[in-house]
């Protein structure tokens, strides 16, 4: 077990290095010369060269990368162009906002999809299966930003049950999820975020449960006299590795890909930040955000692998 975990962790290091290389390259690929932007139009070539040397941009790319990586490792992601504030603080803050609602959404989707999936697999072809399949297909195919707008119209504008956007009076600094006055701001983003993973995970759970129920050992379980409830426990444990993989994937997707939902609800998370950074061409901010998101994605997958190996004894061997 520990050997497998250690090996798996060591294997993540090159992946993370790859991530930093891509993030570094992003700035190099981006059009435009930052030095030209800093200089006044009348500056001479010598001025430009001096400034270039001051920022270390005259060094070979490899050296630049190593210097940048050293800064990243101690948590220095540079300064934002837009407001001159450290990128690290902004990204971290936004990341926490995103992470909390993404986690709640994905856990919600996981629980509901597991119940739906088992029910649909057992009632295969009957009414319950069809209703659940319809909900799942709706979840997969409805664009979340459209759903977000519809939710706002329905619950904020027409019914006035929930606030439309933002993080309320507390703001993102002292937002308290355990407080209803704050939490109600998070409800609609959570629902809009949860629906697509709910649909996808319901479909995969249904397929996985149906597949497990067809396996020989389920017949052995029934033949030895287990109740159907005990059979479901066995089936659930068997789909768990797959479900956890799905959950990790969806969590990664929500953390990185919720740009649209966060923009609709002006939820100050990483998606919102990314959108802002792109629109204002704030390259350091963009770079920092992507670096954090990609790292989170890699770490989530690492966690999924480790959890899987504790569930399925066969994984440790390979």
């Amino acid at each position, binding site marked *: 077990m520990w050997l497998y975990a250690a090996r798996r962790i060591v294997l993540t290091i090159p992946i993370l290095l790859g991530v930093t290389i891509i993030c570094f390259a992003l700035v190099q690929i981006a059009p435009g010369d930052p030095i030209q932007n800093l200089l006044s139009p009348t500056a001479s070539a010598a001025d430009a060269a001096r400034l270039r040397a001051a920022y270390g941009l005259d060094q070979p790319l490899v050296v630049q990368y190593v210097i940048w990586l050293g800064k990243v490792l101690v948590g220095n992601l540079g300064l934002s162009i837009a407001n001159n504030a450290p990128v690290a603080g902004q990204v971290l803050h936004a990341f926490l906002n995103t992470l909390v609602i993404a986690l709640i959404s994905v856990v919600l989707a996981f629980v509901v999809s597991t119940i739906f999936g088992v029910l649909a697999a057992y009632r295969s072809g009957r009414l319950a299966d069809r209703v659940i399949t319809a909900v799942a297909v709706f979840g997969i195919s409805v664009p979340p930003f459209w759903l977000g707008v519809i939710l706002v119209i329905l619950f904020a504008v027409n019914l006035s049950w929930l606030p439309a956007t933002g993080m309320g009076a507390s703001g993102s600094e002292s937002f308290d999820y355990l407080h209803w006055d704050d939490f109600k701001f998070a409800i609609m983003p959570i629902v809009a975020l949860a629906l697509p993973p709910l649909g996808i995970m319901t479909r995969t759970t249904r397929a996985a449960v149906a597949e497990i129920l067809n396996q020989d050992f389920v017949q052995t379980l029934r033949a030895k*006299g287990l109740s159907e409830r005990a059979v479901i426990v066995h089936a659930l444990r068997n789909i768990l590795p797959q479900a956890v993989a799905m959950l990790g994937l969806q969590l990664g997707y929500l953390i990185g890909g919720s740009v649209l939902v966060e923009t609709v609800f002006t939820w100050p998370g990483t998606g919102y930040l990314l959108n802002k950074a792109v629109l204002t061409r704030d390259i350091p901010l963009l770079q920092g955000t992507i670096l954090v998101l990609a790292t989170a994605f890699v770490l989530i997958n690492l966690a999924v692998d480790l959890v899987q190996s504790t569930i399925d004894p066969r994984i440790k061997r390979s």
Partner: protein
Amino acid sequence: MNDMSPPAVAAVPRPEPFVRVEDLRVTFVSRDATVRAVNGISFDLERGKVLCVIGESGSGKSVMMRSLLRLHPKGRTVIEGGMRVGEHDIASIGDRTMTKLRGSLVSMVFQEPMTALDPLYTVGEQIAETVRRHEKVSREAAWARALELLELVRVPSPERRLKAYPHELSGGLRQRIVIAMALSCRPSLLLADEPTTALDASVQIQILVLLRRIQREMGMAMIFVTHDLGVAAQIADEVAVMYAGRIIEYGDARDVLVAPKHPYTRAMLASTAKDQGRDHPLEAIAGSPPDLRALPDGCSFAPRCAHAGPDCTRAVPAPVTDLRRHMARCVRTRLKAGLLTFDPGVAGDPAVREGIDLAARSSPAHCASA
């Protein structure tokens, strides 16, 4: 179609057999087709006896076995006829009672040991789970019982093996585990569905000897499904040969395997590779088993039978049973001095045919009052 329900049971009163199956029919219904997998099977089995069911793939052997545990999916299966084990009427008891009887009164060993165990639980957990399901004992007692069972089925270093996962064991060991699990609550009837088919030849014989020994020690009744005639000869007290969902020959193991009467059994015995010369091409039964969605009229084997005539397809042949309770369902068999004989010469002679029908009707022909 002829009336296929078995004629009235013989006048001689016999002790109630432990297992009685009467005119069992199993039909799988789906939107596309209706598959008649079992078409009227009757047999009796006493405690302590082994019945071997022989037949090709698709002859309904496994379906019949699963019916005895009611393991078929409910919505898509129609089970008709009578099934009784001990004092329990398997055909009519409620689902909850059935669940409790599985594993305690009737147990099953499956064909594929590689996939018959849950891969995520240790072997010990799976055996203890069965024990605790049927007997109100502590976790420790169930574990101790699991250890005893592994010793019973001769698993080497059982303490260590209890903590092993199925993928860490060989096929033979896994089959021993499956057998241990089936035996965990001392069943009175053990159903073994080709338990040696998936194993190496050397392991096959070990498992066979093991099953036979335990069956004798525990005094269980056992129904052993196989398509291997050698295996049947090793283990059977009685043999039933199935074809297209019917028992076409039944009797004492020696009678059926040494002096078979039904052309199908005869052809099957003739086609074992062991007795055939090296330089001759192997003899096999021509054709393939019938489509269970559309069974032919009359004898299902007629299209492949060397002795078939027009009289074969008229109606399903009635069972003919002799003094030794040797039964065959074939229009070419008849009773001669109280014993079943196969006579290919009677083909097409209506007078002789009538005689056979009469003989069949008047004989104690509940096809297997064991």
